[in-house]
Structures are given as C-alpha cells and as structure tokens.
C-alpha cells in the first residue's frame, strides 16, 4: 500500500513491544503531588491558593490574565503544604504547589457543557478553564490553538495518532482503549474551529487502531465528515508540520503557523481531554504516559494525577535497575533528561524513560565528513552540515540564511550523524547566538 508521508525522516528502532499491549494502569492516588503553576508555553501563572488552604481535586490553583497561558488545577484533594520552586521536567524549576492528600476523594468539576450548543466564546473559555494543553509534548494551550484569527479559516483538523517517538505507546493505548472519547473530542474540536474535514492520522505500525477508531465514527462524528488516514511509520511523522504535509499536501510556511494553511492538528490524548472538559466538566488533572527503557524493570502504560513525583511511584508501581543513568521525560528523540527523580509528571509528559548505562553511551565527536545523511534525514529539508559549519565559524547569520530558524529540533540529524556531532544541540545554541547577535545589532542601531 502507498502510505502517505513526508520527504526525509528516519527509521530508528521502535522499542514499542514492551508496552504495546499493556492496558493503561491507573496508579493509586499518591500521598502528595507537586503541581507546577506554569506547565504550558506562555505567561507565568500566579497561585490562586495559599499555604494551609484545603484544595479539592479539580479546583483551579493557578491562573494569569494573559494570553497565551493555561490554567492549572489540583489533581488530588488535600492541604497546600508549601508553594516553592521544584524540579520541573522542562528543567526550569518553576514555582510549584505542594499538596498533601487528606485521603478523601472529593472532586469539584465544572458542569458539563454541550460544545455543539454553546457559543464559540463559551467553548474557548471552557478549554481555558479546564487548562487543556497539547499533550504530545509541546504543551501549547489548546484554547489558543482552537481560536485562530478570523481571517484564517480552518477546513481540516487532524487527530495526531502517529506517535512516532520510539518506546512510547500512550497515544496508541488511548486510541485502543478510549476511541469514543478521542472521536468525540475530535468532533468537538472540529466544531469549534468550523473544520469540514476531520482526519485521524495513524502510523502504519498502529494500523489495528484504524477499525477501532472508525467504529466510533457512526455515533460520535456528529454528522461531520470523518476519515482515518494511514501514514508511513517514520520519525518524525507525528511532527505537526510533517503530518499536515502527509495528510493534506500543504506546507506550513516558514515562520508561519498551521492555521496559515487552514489546518489544525491535535494529539489524540488532547482530544480525549477536550471531550472530558466538555462532557464531564473535568479539567486536565490526570494523564497517561508510557514508562519504559532498558533500566526500567516494569515497562507500563500508566495513568496518574498531574504532579505525581516519579520517586513516589518507585518501587510500588515502577521498579528500576541500579544501572539507570538517564531519566528522560518524553521520547528518546526529543525528550528531556532530568537530574532528579523528584521531578513530577506534567501535562506534557508522554513518557518517562529509564536508560541504562549501555543506552547512555557518550561518543567522541569527530569533524563533519559531509556525508549528507543529515540533509537526507532532515524533515525541514535543511542542510544541517552547512549550518553546523557556519556555527563553527560563529556565523549565526550565515547559519540562518541556510535555515537555522526553520529547524524544529526533531533530532533526526543527530541520530544519523556518523561523526556523532550533536547537531540538534548545536542548533538550539545557534538560535540563542542568533538572537543575541540580532539584539546586539538592534542596540547598535544597525
């Protein structure tokens, strides 16, 4: 079969077998949680609670009157013990609310809201009040994403079931276990933006999810045109821009946004959260994630309150071996290594990987041999080796001319590099260098 895809990309080993067929397991309510006030791209939230307050599961505890930002909520019922900086999976150590459970399972959710009856403004407000963000990893506030400017009409919405990161299976399990929620959420999102075409894009290695999803179209499509599209199993197929190109053939313009081409893409987990925000009135306070890796003795798909500290899951829920060297939040291609097991699960945590010493090998970096594999792998069709050469010469402007800012740091170039050059890292730093140079030029009135 001729699968839809994009040009470029790589085929890393999938490592999905250990957790592929394991149902999502709900962890017992933790005794305490650490909820960071700011978990999404955007403005810094202010706490809405004080130390000593009793908070109820579902209660909003962090907000700021700014756009974009996403509210945060208590994920367990209990007492606020302290509000102070804590290790965060984005390595920013932001302010967090420490809640100690009081053993009750009281909840305070919002009243259900019929997305197909309420106004657009009400619907957007609901998404904001529920603190829904993109759960594939980027944590972009969903209320902002589903409210594109009026002059940018949306005709297509894509449910992202591609999950191209190795090891991770949480999106796949969500599709298999909660297909009705995913399709209902897709219908709601499509209705909010006025899309006429709703597509569930699934990688070919998860083809068995296709009939499961299609079965729900009858009941949950709300009269909308829905279809599934099988896309090639390739990294980064689940990258928003790549998936849009594969499904619609349209390219998000450089420095532009998806709504410039009339498309919106939402992770399937996010769609489930959208459904819950409307149908159940439940804010985004829990999420699923895959736990795996060579140093993880108990690969699993888990469902836990946001703010659950990994250390608290060990050893009752997760067992890790002594030779663990890396703890990665997210997948192995774009995930972030954290320095401490005291790091809590965040809204954007799609996986937690424990890598052994053998999996954490460091390599000697060699000079670029210009083999061109990075350019073949680059889904943005850049020339990483030339950008690297320009940055070696501290010439950020030259690197930019080649395409530095069009790099979205998927890691494909670093993965294929036979000289073991950390290209992706170099480009992250290069973007800082470019910003600094531009700022300097601006100051000197250039």
């Amino acid at each position, binding site marked *: 079969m001729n699968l839809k895809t994009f040009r470029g990309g790589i085929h890393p080993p999938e490592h999905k077998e250990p957790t592929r067929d394991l149902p999502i397991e709900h962890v017992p309510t933790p005794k305490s949680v650490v909820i960071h006030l700011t978990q999404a791209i955007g403005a810094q939230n202010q706490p809405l609670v004080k130390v000593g307050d009793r908070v109820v599961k579902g209660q909003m505890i962090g907000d700021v009157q700014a756009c974009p930002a996403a509210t945060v909520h208590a994920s367990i019922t209990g007492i606020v013990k302290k509000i102070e900086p804590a290790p965060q999976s984005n390595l920013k150590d932001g302010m967090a609310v420490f809640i100690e459970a009081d053993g009750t399972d009281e909840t305070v959710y919002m009243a259900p809201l019929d997305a197909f009856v309420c106004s657009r403004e009400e619907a957007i407000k609901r998404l904001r009040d529920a603190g829904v963000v993109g759960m594939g990893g980027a944590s972009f506030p969903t209320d902002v994403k589903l409210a594109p400017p009026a002059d940018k009409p949306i005709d297509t919405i894509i449910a992202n079931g591609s999950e191209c990161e190795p090891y991770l299976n949480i999106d796949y399990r969500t599709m298999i276990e909660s297909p009705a929620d995913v399709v209902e959420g897709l219908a709601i999102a499509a209705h909010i933006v006025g899309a006429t075409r709703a597509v569930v894009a699934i990688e070919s290695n998860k083809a068995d999810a296709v009939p499961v999803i299609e079965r729900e179209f009858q009941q949950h499509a709300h009269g909308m045109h829905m279809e599934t599209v099988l896309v090639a199993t390739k990294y980064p197929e689940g990258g928003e821009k790549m998936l849009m190109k594969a499904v619609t053939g349209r*390219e998000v313009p450089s420095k532009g946004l998806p709504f410039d081409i009339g498309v919106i893409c939402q992770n399937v987990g996010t769609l489930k959260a959208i459904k819950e925000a409307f149908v159940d009135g439940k804010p985004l306070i829990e999420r699923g994630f895959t736990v795996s890796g060579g140093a993880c003795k108990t690969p699993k798909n888990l469902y836990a309150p946001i703010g659950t500290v990994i250390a608290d899951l060990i050893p009752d829920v997760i067992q890790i071996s002594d030779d663990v060297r890396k703890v990665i939040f997210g997948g192995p291609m774009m995930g972030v*290594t*954290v320095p401490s097991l005291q790091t809590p699960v965040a809204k954007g945590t799609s996986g937690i990987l424990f890598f052994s010493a053998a999996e954490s090998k460091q390599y000697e970096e060699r000079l670029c041999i*210009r083999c061109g594999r990075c350019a073949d792998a680059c889904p943005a069709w850049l020339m990483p080796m030339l950008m690297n050469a320009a940055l070696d010469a501290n010439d950020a402007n030259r690197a930019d001319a*080649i395409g530095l800012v069009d790099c979205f740091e998927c890691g494909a170039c670093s993965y294929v590099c036979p000289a073991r050059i*950390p290209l992706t890292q170099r480009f992250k730093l290069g973007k800082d260098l470019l910003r600094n140079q531009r700022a300097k030029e601006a100051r000197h009135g250039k």
Partner: protein
Amino acid sequence: MENKTMKLVLSGAPHFVTGNDIQKTMGMVIIALLPALAGGVYFFGPRALLVTAVSVVSAVAAEFLFRKALRRETHVTDLSAVVTGMLLALILPVSSPLWMAAVGSAFGIVVAKELFGGLGGNFANPALVGRAVLLMSWPAFMTRWSPSLHAAVVDATTTATPLGILKLGGTIADVIKSVGASGKSALYLQMFLGNRAGCIGETSGLLLLLGAAFLVVTRVIDLRTPVAMIAAVFAASWLFGRDPVFSVLAGGILLGAFFMATDYVTTPVTPIGKWAFGIGAGFMTVLIRQLGNFPEGVTYGILLMNVVVPYLDKIIPRKFGFVKPRKVNA
C-alpha cells in the same frame, strides 16, 4: 526511596543514535573497492596486490605517526586512511616502484589531509593529490604501462593505454588492433571487462560498477555526481569528435566518477552542487584529454572541481515551508 546515590546523566536530545559511524561507512567503501582490486590482480598479476598493500600501510602509518607527533588523538581505526591508500594504488600503474606508492599515499595523507585538520578538514581528495604529485615528480614511472596478462596481442613488456595511443596520434582502429579485438563493439566489450592496459583498478567497468552498485544500494553514495560526470564526459567527447562510448570506458572515468567524485569531504553536499561538480569534472577531464599534455585528465578534472566546492555548496535547495502562500477558500 532507593537509589539515593544514583548518578543521573544530563544530555541534550536525541538520546538515540544510529549504529552507522565513520568506520562502518569507510568499511563499505573498502568492500566496494575489492572487486576492482581483484580485477587488478587478475589483469596485472599479484604485484597489484603488493602495490596496494604498500600504499595502504604507508597511508595508515603516515596518519598514525603524524598525529602521534602532534600529540593528537589517532583515528586510524576509522579506516579512512585505508580507503585513501587503496584508492591511490588503484590509480597507479602496476609497475610503480613500491617506494613511489608509499611516498604518494604518505604525501596525500599528510599534506592534503592531516595538515588541514584530518578527515573532514581536507578540501582535496588525498589519493588524487598523491597521484598528482607522483605524476609531476616521476612521470616516467607513472606512464609505464604493462599490458593485461590476458591480452590477445602481447608484443612487448610495456605498452600504451588506449588513451595513450590516441594522444600519440593513433586512431580507434589502432586501439582495436592493440587489444586484438575484431571490431569496435568487441573493443568496447574488452574495455568494459577490463582487459586493457591501465592503472591497477581503473580498467574494468564491470567490476567498478559492481562495487558502485553496492554503495548505491547501501545508500553510501549519491548517484547524482557520477551520473553527471559520465554524462558530461560522453557529451563533451562527442562535441570534440571523440568516440563517446570509448571515452567513458577508457582511462579512469568510472573509477573517478563513482569513487572519487563521490568522496564526501571534497565534493558538494547540495543537490545542484553535486550535478554541477559532476558536469564540471567530466568536462575538465575531456578538455585535458583533448588539449593537454597528458592522455588522461580525471585526476586534475576532479581536483580542479574540489577547489570550487565551497561555491557549489552555496546553492541551497528549497526548504520546507518555502512555498507561495496558499489561497484559503473562505
């Protein structure tokens, strides 16, 4: 909590890397050169192997000793020096003095590669630089050709290459006579199989294509440059009134196109650059054959193009998202 003393490593994404490294890539090139080397032994005798061994050992030793002398890390295990040594031997006559092969590959490694920082820093192909220097320094040794052991007509211990016969004013008919072929197509076949005088590894198109096919299938090399170079040789030869098929099969075109013009470090990385490099190298080669002093021009053709690579690398291909804004139907 357990593992209180656990040491966690922090590193930037990705946390995954392919198993393919420089050593494996160079290993593939070595494998791809083996058919041509075997052909060299078949057509010119076991001395071909001796010349190759000396050239390889000299290249590896030169790299190792140079880096040791500079107290830098040695990288001979990446096998790139082995490739350079092999390539140089394959473009030498089988009668080359062993000391000359050693000097050529050591010169290529030290002057063309290590002085520029080692693998990745060089701007010119070390094997070709080695050959160019030998050709200028000891032209007599570099143009002393032995006939193929399987030649139909052998009337001397030395002979001329097909291109050499043309340079001395001969015609294709003279070449046909020299290999004892029955006609033009029989000549083409003899040349394609490699049954002619020439450098150790350049004569057999068949064996070179075999190795090249391996590199193409394993995606080590890109076909753009060799295709462009061969096409340019064909076209330019035709323009100059030379037999185009003969021109492609003669000399070192196929070896140069598939194994030298595809050298990663010294050729363009941009797609248009690759086409331009191939066309330029092919055209320069024919110009040298037609107008120059030497019968063959592949070495200088490619070296000349090596110099302009930084310019060819400025031709950046279209990036994702650089399309005209789409009209959205409201």
